[in-house]
Each structure stands twice: as structure tokens, then as C-alpha cells.
């Protein structure tokens, strides 16, 4: 705790140096640990973590930064998966198929964006849920029941490549969020989150900012879907459209801390690790635990683990100050 207190009270530049080097160390660990260990379940675990980081961070763009809690996130994930898989299986080079998946998701988002953004609050939430469900039902009716990689693709299946793609996406998504927050657009977007009417009154073009957040959100969600489609040897094509992906994004971002940069990262790590651990022992129980945890977070710690951590540090700083005063 003393070290953390030191961190909080020390000068800005020292802190920044510390945080940056911490991040770099984390990234290096993420790159090299799975390679060192080189066990399939470790690659898979790290893959899932990175996939879920992208999933949560992409939702964070819309819900955390712009304050639009959409329940239709699975639509973008599903479109990305569908387009990527279909184009790739049709002999398109993967990189192109991958980007197309993201682009298709953005295209869809822009189509439904303007009308959907006319809805507010609860109506926006259930409206987006409705849209995603329409997509899921349509997909499940029209797509083949199962999609399997062809023989040659299975033979050349390279798990590490998939992991590094997922890692790259997770870094890109978080990096994009970082850049957005430092960009001139950030003020407008955050203003929309805090108070839409006030933002409008001060001249912020509300719809434009929402659409920007939406396009980033859908793009990275679509890419995440593409990563998923790349990794799954065989899956149900309608599965990526399932609301489960939306709810996972919600869980991750909330547990970690909505509207923060590190929130989805922490949340994804927590979520995936706990889920994999519990899935071994108590199959149904992990959902119950997440549910209860989620409820507690909403009621007590709306800022998620990030907020809980910050509160802990504040308390320890206060204690340090008290100790210093007493010892004087």
C-alpha cells in the first residue's frame, strides 16, 4: 500500500513514466508468456482474454464514452464474423476479409444509427436489442446450421497466429480509445454522455458525435467478430449474433469500470479467468456469481473495479496522512 500511496502522491511525470513502463511490461508479458509456456490451453486462455478485451472496449466506446448503453452489440460482432468467414472461405485473402468484416459492421451501424439514436434511455436500449434480435433470427434462418473449416485450412491452423491477431486487435482497440480521448472529439463525446441537452445547447453536434462513437464501436466489434470467425474451426454461424456477446461485453466493461480505459482490460482478464476457473469446477455457478457480482457493482460500485481500486488508494492515502500527523 505504501508503494501505491507513493504512486498517487508523487509528481505527474514520474507517475506517467511508471504507468507507461507498467503497460509496456504487461504487453511484453502478453507477447512472450504464451510463447514460452507453449501449451494449447494457455494460448486459448490468452486468446479469450484478448478477444474479450476487444469486445468490452468496443462496447465501451459507445456506452462508456458516449453514454449510449446499447444492447445490440452482438449485431456488429455477428456481422463481422459472418462477413469475414464467408469472404475468407471464398478464397479472399484473410487480411482483406478481416477488414471487410469490420467495414460491413460499420456500414450496418451507419444505416441504423440515425433512426436508432432518436431513441433515448430505456427505449434506445430495447430498440438496439430488438435490432440485434432481428439480425440474429434472420441469420439463423438463412445461414447453414454449421460452418466448418475445410481440410487444408485445418491442416495449416496456426493457433499462435490467431492469438497475436487477437492481441493486436486488443491493443489497437485500446489504443484507438486512448487516441480518441486525447483528440478534439473527446470533449464533445463526453459532453454528450454527461448531458445531451446541455451539450446541444453549447453547440455540440450531438448526432455526429454519437455516430463517431458508434462507428468506432461497430468497427472494432466487427473486427473482434472476425477474429472469432478466424479462430473457430467449426461453429454455428448464428452464434456470434447471440445476445450473450452483448451481455458479456456489458459484464466485462461494468466489472472493470465503465468509461475508463483500463476498465475493459481489467474486466476481461477477471471475467475470462474466473469463468475458465469456475467452468472447471462448478459449471452453472460462474454465471450466478457474475450475476451477483454485477448486481453488487451496479448498486455499490458503479465504477467497477477501477473505482473500487481508486477508493482503496484514497483511503490508504488518508491513513498515511493520519499516521504522519500522529507521529509528528
Amino acid at each position, binding site marked *: 500500500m505504501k508503494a501505491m500511496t507513493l504512486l498517487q502522491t508523487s509528481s505527474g511525470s514520474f507517475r506517467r513514466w511508471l504507468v507507461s513502463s507498467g503497460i509496456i511490461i504487461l504487453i511484453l508479458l502478453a507477447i512472450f508468456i504464451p510463447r514460452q509456456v507453449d501449451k494449447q490451453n494457455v494460448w486459448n486462455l490468452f486468446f479469450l482474454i484478448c478477444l474479450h478485451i476487444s469486445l468490452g472496449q468496443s462496447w465501451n466506446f459507445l456506452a462508456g464514452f458516449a453514454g449510449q*448503453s446499447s444492447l445490440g452489440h452482438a449485431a456488429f460482432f455477428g456481422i463481422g464474423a459472418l462477413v469475414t468467414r464467408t469472404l475468407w472461405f471464398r478464397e479472399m485473402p484473410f487480411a482483406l476479409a478481416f477488414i471487410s468484416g469490420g467495414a460491413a459492421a460499420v456500414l450496418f451501424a451507419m444505416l441504423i444509427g440515425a*433512426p*436508432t439514436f*432518436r*431513441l*433515448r*434511455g*430505456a*427505449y434506445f*436500449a*430495447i*430498440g438496439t*436489442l*430488438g*435490432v440485434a*434480435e*432481428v439480425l440474429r*433470427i*434472420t441469420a439463423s*434462418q438463412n445461414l447453414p446450421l454449421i460452418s466448418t473449416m475445410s481440410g487444408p485450412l485445418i491442416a495449416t491452423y496456426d493457433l499462435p497466429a490467431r492469438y497475436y491477431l487477437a492481441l493486436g486487435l486488443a491493443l489497437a482497440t485500446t489504443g484507438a480509445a486512448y487516441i480518441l480521448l486525447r483528440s478534439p472529439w473527446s470533449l464533445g463525446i463526453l459532453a454528450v454522455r454527461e448531458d445531451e441537452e446541455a451539450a446541444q445547447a453549447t453547440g455540440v453536434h450531438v448526432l455526429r458525435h454519437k455516430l463517431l462513437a458508434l462507428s468506432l464501436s461497430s468497427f472494432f466489434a466487427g473486427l473482434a467478430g472476425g477474429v472469432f470467425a478466424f479462430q473457430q474451426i467449426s461453429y454455428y454461424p448464428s452464434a456470434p449474433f447471440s*445476445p450473450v456477446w452483448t*451481455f458479456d461485453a*456489458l459484464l466485462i466493461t*461494468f466489472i472493470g469500470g465503465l468509461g475508463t480505459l483500463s476498465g475493459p482490460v481489467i474486466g476481461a482478464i477477471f471475467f475470462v479467468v474466473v469463468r475458465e476457473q469456475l467452468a472447471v469446477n462448478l459449471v*452453472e*455457478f460462474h*454465471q*450466478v456469481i*457474475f*450475476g*451477483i*457480482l*454485477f*448486481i453488487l457493482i*451496479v*448498486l455499490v460500485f*458503479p465504477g467497477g473495479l477501477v473505482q473500487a481500486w481508486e477508493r482503496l488508494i484514497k483511503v490508504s492515502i488518508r491513513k498515511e496522512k493520519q499516521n504522519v500527523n500522529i507521529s509528528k
Partner: protein
Amino acid sequence: MSIESIAQTLVFGLFVGGIYGIAAMGLALVFGVLKMLNIAHGELVMLGGYVSFWAFSTLGIDPFVSLAIVIPVLFVVGLALDRTVYRHIVRLLGEEKIKNSLLVSFGLTLVLQNLAQWLFTADERAIQVSYAGVGLNLFGVTMPYTRLGTLSIALVVTLALNYFLHHTYPGKAILATAEDFEAAELAGINIHRVYMMTFALGASLASIAGTFVTVTYGISPSVGILWTLKALIVIVLAGTGSILGAFPAGILLGVVEAVSGAFIGATYREVVGLVIFLLVLILRPQGLFARS
């Protein structure tokens, strides 16, 4: 298409619509009075269905009779949920309240769905009563007793609810709280008791719908979200301020689904409801029945 098959389709639409209506009224009550969106409403429907299944499979009680058990059980569950979880959210205001209720109820869906899965396994359960498949046959239209039972009880429940809300003091207190909760407080109404009772009442209505679902289709832990979505569609059609209007809106949805299902196939039937829902949401948010 023959007249008979059209009539048959319409009649089955009515039957299903009755279930939609009851499910939706429960959600409409909670949304209209507590101003909260309970995404776990479908899970309450599901739990109600499981209680009636349990009553049938272990005690041999006819599902319609088992309502006497199902309703009180879910009433208590509703009270418990309000006391432990929703009570903390109801004191928030406006958008924050709605957002938080969405989130909290989402957490509850995880808990309730997996609780059901743990207790009853993920398999679908169904009730096979002795008079299943038997029914009236009017003008070539088949009306199974089970379906007639659900529709008639649904109608009775709706009328009873109407009487309760408009002609008794507790009911009027609920309507008053929905209109203006501070004015209700100033009239001497204990609004926290109203909130608790209303939520429990909503859960009871959900449980009735759940019993109907088990009798009509069968029940499994994952149907929760489907029923939440159905209830949402119906209350948007009816207009979110309308509590009793949810019943005719449910009937309407049932009929529209059945008719479109006959023309474009059963699989797209669901999409029709959703598309209408989205159109109403965007173009006429006050609902189809509201006086604009």
C-alpha cells in the same frame, strides 16, 4: 386459404396473444409504477412455469389449479427481489433509474436463469394433462381445452386487475403513484409499500403467463429473454404508460404474428413482431392506443 384455416390461425393467434397480454401487463405495471425496466421479467415468467411444472410432476396438480400455488410463490419472490435489490434503485431518478434497473435486472437474469438450470437442468420440460389434445370444434375450428383455459383465465385476470386498480383503494394508490409519486406521498400513501406490492403483483402476473407457457409450449431455463422481449414489444405497442392496454396489445401481437406466420412462414413470424416493435418505437413512441 380456406375460411376455416384463416379462422383457425386467428383463433390460435388469440390464444397466444392472451399469454402475451398477461406477461406484458406484469411488466407494464412495474414500468408504469416503479418507472424501472425489469429485464428479468422473462425469468419470472420462466420461474412461474417451473413452479407449475413442479406442482404437476411431483404433486400431480392440474396446471390451472396449480395457479393457486404458483401465484403466491412468485408473489413472495417478487417481494424478496424488491426488498433486496430493486428497493435501492427505485429512489434514483429518471434516466439513471432506468439505466440502473436495466443493469441490475440483467444481473438477475444470470442468477435466475442459472438457478433454474441447476435445479431443473437445461432440458425442456412439458406438462401433459389428461385432456391435452381434446377440445371444442366450432365451425371447423379446433379449440383445445388447454388453450381455451389459458385465454379465459387471462381474460378473467385482466378484468380482475382492472377492477382492482380502478375500484379499490390499494389499486387506486398504485395508479396514483404511477401518475405522480410525490403527490401520492403527500396524499398519505406509503409509496414504498406500493412499490413492493406492485413489483410482487407484476411477478404474479408473470407467473400466470409462465404457467400458460408450460402448458402450451413447455419450459426451459433459456426462454426468459424471449419472453422479456415479447413483453417489451407489447408494452411498446400499447404505449408505456398504459397498464391495462397491454392486454389488447398482446392479443393484437398474437393475431398479427399468427396471420403473418401463415403467409410468410413460421420462422419469420418472430421478425414481424420485432419489426413492428421497432417501427412503433421510432415513429409512434406513445404506442398504438395512446390518446395523442
